[in-house]
């Protein structure tokens, strides 16, 4: 590969950069930011990248000049210099100065990013394997609480519905419930996790914060415009790490108030009477829902689990043995395995799901676990 080859490569490179303009539909940069800090970060990234690019061109300009002009094949004789203190001091100091110039705006932005004081609203986001839970802690909507699970149909993921996937613009970025927040308000997000580390990441709102089990971290954003902003879990958290998206819906304040009212009404309607006398059928039906939300990712809809990784429930000793043991296991989890504690679910939910698993598939214990049984074992 002689000089011709190198020139050819240069031409290919030029073509690449030229055609980059024709790639408008390809995303080549950070997502369009919708917060002021996001814009600052966007600009900061642009400045650094441009500076790096200029230095890169400068340094490799010298290198390629040498490659073309100082080659043996054009008869260049090697000089034998190998030191020059002045030059060496200069090229140690100049990068130093550039770095200081970069550090100044970066420091300002960072300090602003970390200032979570005086929020208008506080929401807690909890990472679970593999969904997010949200609790509205302070501000309008206080008390609202829900889970947010991937709503992309399984068939689109496993390939049995490729047409559906292709037609779905929000493939893997859609959830059953949205985190609704008002526009222009400072939203503080407390981030934590129930099992392993997750990360709450919404690129267009410029937020990424690891969710560490047992600790609470915080971050904030103030959306400048309404819209639906999508993100994903950014920290490897096991099997379905790629399948626990985040959807934030920013709405006008009036719309937000309406949403809060509807949520509160819904919560009141769904509130289960603790003294309700449950029948086996009701419990099983409710349990199936809870199972689908919390258990199905590992133990599977068939109750057969994943051999080697997640145990089967159908025919298992646990789901057919003493019911107290199973309730305790579900409440407290099993240390050192992917079976997490599910204490955060209500007595009714737990009673229902245990009842469901003891009376489904090959399990025919006929046992009914009442909410009071769960309460007694908490």
């Amino acid at each position, binding site marked *: 590969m002689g000089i011709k*080859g190198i020139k050819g490569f240069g031409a290919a490179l030029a073509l690449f950069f030229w055609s980059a303009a024709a790639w408008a539909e390809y995303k080549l940069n950070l997502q369009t930011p919708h917060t002021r800090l996001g814009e600052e970060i966007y600009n900061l990234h642009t400045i650094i990248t441009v500076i790096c690019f200029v230095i890169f061109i400068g340094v490799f300009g010298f290198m390629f000049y040498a*490659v073309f002009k100082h080659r043996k094949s054009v008869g*260049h004789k090697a000089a034998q210099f190998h*030191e020059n203190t002045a030059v060496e001091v200069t090229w140690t100091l100049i*990068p130093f100065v550039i770095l200081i110039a970069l550090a100044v705006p*970066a420091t300002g932005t960072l300090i602003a*990013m970390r200032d979570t004081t005086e929020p208008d609203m506080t929401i807690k986001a909890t990472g679970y394997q593999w969904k997010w839970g949200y609790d509205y802690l302070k501000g309008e909507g206080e008390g609202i609480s829900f889970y947010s699970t991937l709503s992309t149909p399984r068939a689109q993921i496993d390939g049995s519905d490729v047409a559906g996937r292709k037609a779905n613009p929000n493939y893997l970025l859609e959830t059953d419930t949205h985190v609704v927040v008002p526009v222009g308000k400072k939203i503080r997000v407390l981030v934590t996790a129930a099992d392993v*580390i997750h990360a709450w990441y919404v*690129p267009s709102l410029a937020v990424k914060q690891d969710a560490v089990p047992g600790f609470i971290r915080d971050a904030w954003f103030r959306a400048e415009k309404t819209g639906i902003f999508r993100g*994903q879990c950014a920290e490897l958290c096991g099997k379905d790490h790629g399948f626990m998206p985040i959807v934030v819906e920013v709405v006008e304040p009036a719309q937000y108030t309406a949403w809060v009212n509807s949520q509160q009404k819904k919560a009141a309607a769904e509130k289960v009477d603790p003294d309700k006398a449950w029948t086996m059928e009701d419990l099983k039906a409710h349990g199936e829902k809870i199972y689908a939300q919390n258990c199905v990712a590992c133990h599977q809809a068939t109750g057969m689990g994943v051999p080697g990784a997640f145990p089967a429930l159908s025919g298992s000793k646990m789901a057919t043995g003493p019911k107290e043991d199973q309730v305790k296991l579900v409440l407290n989890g099993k240390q050192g395995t992917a079976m997490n504690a599910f204490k955060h679910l209500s007595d009714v939910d737990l009673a229902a799901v245990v009842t469901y698993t003891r009376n489904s598939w090959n399990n025919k214990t006929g046992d009914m676990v009442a909410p009071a049984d769960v309460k007694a074992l908490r």
Partner: protein
Amino acid sequence: MEAAHAHHGHQGHDDHAHGHPTGIMRWIKSTNHKDIGTMYLWFSFTMFIVGGIMALIIRSELFQPGLQIVQPDFFNSMITYHGLIMVFGAIMPAFVGFANWLIPMQIGAPDMAFPRMNNLSFWLLPPAALLLIGAQFMPGGGAGVGWTMYAPLSTQAGPAMDLTIFAIHILGISSIMGSINIITTVLNMRAPGMTLMKMPLFCWTWLITAYLLVAVMPVLAGAVTMTLTDRHFGTHFFNAAGGGDPVLYQHIFWFFGHPEVYIIAIPAFGVVSQVIPAFSRKPLFGYASMVYATASIAILSFMVWAHHMYTAGMPVEAQLYFMYATALIAVPTGVKVFNWVATMWRGSLTFETPMLFALGFLFLFTLGGFTGLVLAIVPVDVQLHDTYYVVAHFHYVMVAGALFSAFAGIYFWLPKWTGRMYNETLGKLHFWLSLIFFNVAFFVQHFLGLAGMPRRIPDYALQFAEFNAISTIGAWGFGLSQLLFLYIVIQCIRGGEKAPEKPWEGADSLEWTHLPTPAPWHSFETPPVLK
């Protein structure tokens, strides 16, 4: 030995003095630095293929949206063992192989200081590799925890995790023994007149690397041991419910992990610092500043670990400190790049395969360094952390950096090692294929990361589809190109043309100036006379 001295330089003549075994026992019982170096290099290449197959499984699954080839659990296992095998099985042993072959020859010594320990450091590697590969066949499959093995995901993983932890212990012991050997050899076995500041830069870089290894491998061993006791013996180092902290694991891991980056990069700097002057026919520019810059990088590498954890949660003051300290590494790294370019400046350049790979290293490693600077800036990193931008960044440093430099070194020293020349045309073809496919595979990943694609996901949203498809094509091209490398090396060993005594006009370290080609069984039985 006396008789052998008289015949200094005749390969094989001293064999009878040792009666060393032949056949397979030659390798199993070998205490010879060249045999052990060869084994390190072949082991490394084998692991490179194993890790490469895992990479191709990953990339094939990511060719299109949806789950087509593997399930998420297996995918997570692949990303984990691809990382571990490439770092601990391929790249690190490759450079230890170089160290074994070259350090005794470059400092005028007969062999390494502790030949039997040298044998043991190598033979610990295959069992560790078997544990890493065997972990795939444990109940539940390999541990899908990522090569960083963050707790509590790692405490939750199946029994494969225990095999992985044990493998890391063994690899750590091997590395520490190898490093002690290198430090002792460099400090004690230099020929008279070979002062430290006259050593070839490759020896300097390995001396510094060996100190890094001795310092940080025990830290990694500590981190994984704590994981082990959390898993089985009821401790709660990383369990908040018991008073521990999951983030503690990350601090310990990265206190090892960041120097580890330089453990891989610094010997690569050393190789390139031998190759570029040789093909520029001009001495290395700023030798002393190169030594100081390498040492500065090594020292700074202990002070920047938390830049891998900007989003894990730490006080803003700590973020500021780690941002400034990390950016500071750009200064000595820049000095090195400037020095290499200045070495070429007004030289008399030729572009044989080793030089091409060295220039590929220089160009692409610098690019990886610049994206590292972008990632050092906390506000920007918050957007890019754990996205494909990071994946692109470290592959520029690890593949285009360390691996390209290893290729440069192999082509450069192959004639000295085997006494035969490789096929220059095929070597250049290997370079151009590797260069182009590498960039096809990894350059586009910058865009994926900027657009917000998280790393370590088996399936992705549709807007990432085009670049993922391009990247997969590049990865396959890059992988298949490496078979050409295997062919070139075997062809060279089996039937390459006989190498001239000094195939590279500008090479000036002892192995070229004071030893015949191929190098004799014992490098220097009498110390060379240095001017």
